[in-house]
């Protein structure tokens, strides 16, 4: 199991390292909203701390994307680990 967790996390981290090279074209829905002129209807109701997958305070775009991705990977891993364990315990 330990091996599985480590290799799973390593794969996710490698994917994050590639994220600065991801296409910056708008995604399917964004593109359609631009073509049909409703993109301006989009709004942010809260100030997301790591808005647009770039970590604030880090000027380098490359680095700020990677840091944002790593934070997401680790947070989601830990949250789901906690949830999974909660479910298992409450079963008994």
């Amino acid at each position: 199991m330990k091996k599985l967790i480590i290799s799973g996390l390593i794969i996710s981290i490698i994917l994050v390292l590639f994220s600065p090279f991801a296409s910056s074209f708008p995604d399917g829905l964004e593109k359609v909203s631009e073509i049909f002129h409703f993109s301006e209807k989009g709004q942010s109701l809260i100030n997301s701390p790591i808005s647009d997958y770039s970590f604030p305070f880090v000027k380098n775009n490359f680095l700020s994307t990677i840091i944002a991705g790593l934070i997401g990977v680790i947070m989601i891993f830990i949250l789901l680990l906690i949830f999974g364990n909660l479910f298992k315990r409450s079963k008994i």
Partner: protein
Amino acid sequence: MHIPDGFLDTKTWASFWVVSFGFIGVAIKKAKEELKEKSAPLMGIIGAFIFAAQMLNFPVLNGTSGHFVGGVLAGIILGPFAGLIVMSVVLIIQSLLFGDGGILALGANIFNMGIIGTFLGYYIFILLNKIFKKGLFLNSFIASWFAIVLGSLSCTVQLAISKTIPLYLGLPSMVGIHSLIGIGEGLITSLVVSFLYKTRKDLIFIKTPDQGGL
């Protein structure tokens, strides 16, 4: 396909909040029955992988990009209920922390990218397995392709009932572009599922023939 706030009207986002969080409530209950010893770390890993893979937009036609969603992958490996919990956590974190997908639109996004993949896509996969017993790669490819296209269809309907864009305008471009993005989704899902079947079949939710396993 993450819908931002402002695209959906109140009746639409509120309805999908009720539907999606209702589903999540049922999923939490049912996931308790599905979960095994290895499930908690596996949920964590699948969630982390899906989040990371979603960051990797790949270019498709005409200056547009798409990215992996992962609903069908989560459903096949973890089962539809635990899979939905993983997808919901990913989508909630993306919305709150990264501003990717609106808060009000969260219910609609969980429906389009979570429920449609982990349930509808999952059952398409099971159905295909029953018909084409040896077609694991193709079956997971087709199921994931459908999940993306049906997700985009659902998204377009939500935009239409919100009077953001009429169906006859939105449908061809949304479904058209997502039928291309779905090819990427299908390839990634098939590769991961085939790889796990070969190396760690014990980790995959579907095993017995009556569940459509191979």
